[in-house]
């Protein structure tokens, strides 16, 4: 029990680091991943912006990034991360790799939710003379809102999992705490505590995500 009170500050700090990393990464995942997902979807649809070569290129690009084991990705983009954050370790530094990993993941998930939109609705919008921009804002995004909410949930949970590896660049976070104390030091109490905290976090994210996606009106 005393060990538990001892690690409480550590846990608190790790929780903050995780929150920071997840927030930064999900922000960029949506900021860049959503347009990328839209582009992937639109370039595959001849009625919208059908461009097979561009679609193939973007598809290959996302696949390449998604193929990297996360630890290798972190190491590979170190120079870029250093240049961007002007540092060589810490949660913000780790967020660069986390963002890069989560952008294609989110883009693909978003693309999948766009694919779920009926072809007929797109056809009707084109027949109505709507511009591509209007179709994005008024058809694609609202129609895929539920899928996008689920995609965000899934991406956040993946980032939480990825962030455990962020320890190698001093990213910190709960996963890192579990590895450093629990795994390397055989500190069972810390390990159990961190795993419990992780389970709670993931559950919470999923519950909130499900709640939000079911709340979408009109569906």
């Amino acid at each position, binding site marked *: 029990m005393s060990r538990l009170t001892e690690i409480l500050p550590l846990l608190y700090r790790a929780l903050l680091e995780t929150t920071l990393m997840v927030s930064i990464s999900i922000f960029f995942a949506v900021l860049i991943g959503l347009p990328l997902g839209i582009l992937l979807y639109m370039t595959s649809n001849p009625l919208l912006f059908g461009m097979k070569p561009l679609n193939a290129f973007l598809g290959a690009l996302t696949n390449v990034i998604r193929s990297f084991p996360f630890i290798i990705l972190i190491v590979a983009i170190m120079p870029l991360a250093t240049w961007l954050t002007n540092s060589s370790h810490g949660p913000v530094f780790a967020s660069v790799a986390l963002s890069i990993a989560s952008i294609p993941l989110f883009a693909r998930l978003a693309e999948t939710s766009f694919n779920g939109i009926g072809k007929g*609705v797109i056809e009707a919008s084109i027949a109505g*003379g709507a511009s591509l921009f209007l179709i994005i804002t008024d058809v694609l995004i609202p*129609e895929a809102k539920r899928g996008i909410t689920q995609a965000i949930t899934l991406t956040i949970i993946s980032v939480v999992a990825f962030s455990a590896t962020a320890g190698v660049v001093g990213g910190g976070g709960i996963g890192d705490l579990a590895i450093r104390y629990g795994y390397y030091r055989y500190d069972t109490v810390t390990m159990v505590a961190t795993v419990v905290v992780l389970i709670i976090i993931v559950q919470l994210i999923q519950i909130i995500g499900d709640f939000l996606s079911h709340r979408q009106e009109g569906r």
Partner: protein
Amino acid sequence: MGIELRGVSKTFELKNRKVEALKQTDLSIKDGEIFGLIGFSGAGKSTLLRVINLLERPTSGSVIVNGVVLDSLTEKELRTRRQKIGMIFQQFNLIESKTVYENIEFVLKASKHDKRKMADRVNELLELVGLTDKMHSWPKNLSGGQKQRVGIARALANEPEVLLCDEATSALDPDTTKNILRLLKKINHDLGITIVLITHEMEVIKEVADRVGVMSDGEIIETNDVYSIFSHPQHNVTRGFVQDIYDFVIPPHIRETDSSQVITIKFLDENAEANYVNQLYRHFDLDISILNGRIEYINGMPLGFLMLHVQGDGGEIGNLKTFITESRGIEEAEIYE
């Protein structure tokens, strides 16, 4: 004016073969008419309809709608033109995440309609299709007929010159179908909008169309006014469609011989109501019994069919046939199997 298709064709390139969905086709649809295209699925009617607003780019030929050559327009010009060509669909294709009101508003946004007048226009359209009370409903809470009314309101929002109907009533029950067709007819009549509709149901054609094109295997095999299509179908496919409506078959227990024949008489125009039958009984020494009979009203004009079983002297039956041929307004009909 109206719609002109000149040498339009469409070939789809699949992985290892080409499919000619639409063979070289010329078609003129007059301003203000209701033109029906009928055909089985896969006949190419859906492709033809989509060529009119260039949802399908034709492989060859050109599309002229009210004097504007659509295939020569830029994307932006085409968008503006499409706002003047409304379209409704079998599956309605409403935006599920928008209310009835917002669905209609969407196309007004597309045409950059004056924001202050937007609400007025939406209300006007809802009134036209009789859905004012459903304004804030979600599509999922509407019946099929109501969804199609929203579809119609949306298609009419930007005051189109042409309305394309893609199997618009095929997903609806018979009563709702009649209501929707009545609404289309009203729109055509009151607003003078040219309507092109495709269907696989002859009932729909009978109910609303002025002229019909019959499609089979990627081409229009027959075009005529609706009455002529029903009274004198030329092509076998057309005959099949017409036959579906009458559904006359020679009863299997009747064996036709020289002295026992089944004769079907077709009554055209106003003669459908005349009393030729009386004359048949009076002038011919034959046993005549009625097997089947029906009068259809096509655009208000009657078209009658009467199937008779005639027994007696072979020569007298011949005389009867001659009488039918020589009388104005009636003729012997073939029963197409």
